[in-house]
């Protein structure tokens, strides 16, 4: 997969030979086997499959193989795994309370998938699965539908109390309710676009600066800029995984305790 990407990039360089930017080539979904441009059907093994499989392997490596020793005094990898576990566990407990801990494995799944996808995407020549709106939208819609259904199952019609401010003046309540309903339905949109947008912007920016490296005079500046943005992206990758997860926890809290 990596060599293919190299080949594509080289090909462009040969064709163009000048100042050419291809900031979005890195996001192309390509079949892993066979020719570029082959049709991609739902079951085709693509670079998406490859990089998602890598994130699964990372999860297994950290949380299953890393904790194989089950040591009371942990090894380095085991302490890292315990750190991640404790971090997400505490987040779920703090935001949603004890009742939310039932959904901890789901939230852990989301967090680990996004975290590893973001960081794997920072490897040179990598494909960033979480930079695709299709992926983040499924994640966000999953959270939205799950939380909404859970809210109605747990609270029945009382879940609608989420939109009805009891401590607001009576005449304001319908207006606030309309705003609350709109903001509720905007949640999955902002939830998904925030994650994909951050990653696309950062990765595209790195590619744009890399394009400037073709001009010899600008290349040192280009390298510096790439380094700086890469550093920023390392932060963004962690922070966006955290933000997505804590927002999920907050939505879950609304479903479990709809009264404000």
């Amino acid at each position, binding site marked *: 997969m990596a060599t293919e990407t190299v080949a594509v990039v080289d090909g*462009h360089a040969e*064709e*163009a*030979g*000048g*100042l*050419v*930017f*291809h*900031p*979005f080539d890195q*996001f*192309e*979904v390509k079949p892993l086997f066979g020719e*570029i*441009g082959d*049709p*991609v*059907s*739902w*079951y*085709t093994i*693509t670079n*998406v*499959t490859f990089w*998602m499989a890598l*994130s*699964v392997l990372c*999860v*297994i490596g950290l*949380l*299953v193989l890393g*904790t194989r020793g*089950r040591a*009371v005094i*942990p090894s380095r990898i*085991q302490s890292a*795994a*315990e750190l991640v*576990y*404790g971090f997400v566990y505490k987040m779920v407990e703090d935001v949603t309370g004890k009742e939310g801990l039932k959904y*901890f*494995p*789901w939230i*852990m*799944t989301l967090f*680990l*998938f996004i975290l590893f996808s973001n960081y794997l995407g920072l490897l040179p020549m990598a494909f960033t*699965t979480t*930079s*695709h*709106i*299709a*992926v983040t939208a*499924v*994640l966000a819609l999953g959270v939205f539908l799950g939380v909404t259904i859970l809210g109605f199952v747990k609270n029945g019609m009382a879940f609608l109390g989420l939109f009805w401010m009891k401590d607001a003046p009576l005449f304001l309540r319908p207006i606030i309710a309309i705003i609350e309903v709109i903001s509720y339905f905007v949640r999955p949109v902002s939830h998904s676009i925030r994650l*994909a947008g951050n990653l*696309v912007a950062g990765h*595209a920016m790195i590619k*744009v600066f890399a394009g400037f490296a073709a001009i010899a005079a600008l290349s040192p500046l280009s390298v510096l800029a790439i380094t700086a943005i890469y550093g920023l992206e390392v932060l963004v990758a962690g922070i966006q995984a955290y933000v997505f997860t804590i927002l999920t926890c907050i939505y879950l809290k609304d479903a479990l305790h709809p009264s404000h």
Partner: protein
Amino acid sequence: MEDAVATEIITADEVVVHGAEAAGPGMPQLDVSSFPNQIFWLLVTLGVIYFVLSRFALPRIGAVLAERAGTITNDIAAAEELRHRAREAETAYDKALADARSEANRIVAETKAQIQADLDAEMEKADAQIAAKTAESQKAIDEIRDNAARNVSEVARDVAREIVAAFGADADAKKVDAAVDAKLGERA
């Protein structure tokens, strides 16, 4: 997909940022034809991660953390127990020390009393001996004094008799003796 490839063939003097062709085929994120593929593999991935986490990873880590918390609690309890025992041992030691000290004091006092008693007895005995000696000596002194007094009166009579004889007076010995005794008697 083919459109995307086509637009990427660019002449040398053209500077093209694909993002600028917004909503066009340039942005792979908006290529709907790849959505089913991504969504399918995403669901598979999430399913696998959830399965692995809920079946293996999370129970294991939870158990390890619980075990560690248990171990730490036990260790703290054991340390508390040991400290308690150390304190008990210290109390016992202090008590033994105090007992030994009071025992020693008792022995010292006893010995002192014993010695005092012995001393007193010896003292008494010595006093008695001294008193006996003193009485004896007193008797000897008295004897000597009596003898001396008797000798004095004898010598006085003899001297008086001789003196009277020397003066040529024929004195009755008995009278002289009486006169001397009288004189001595006045003195005594």
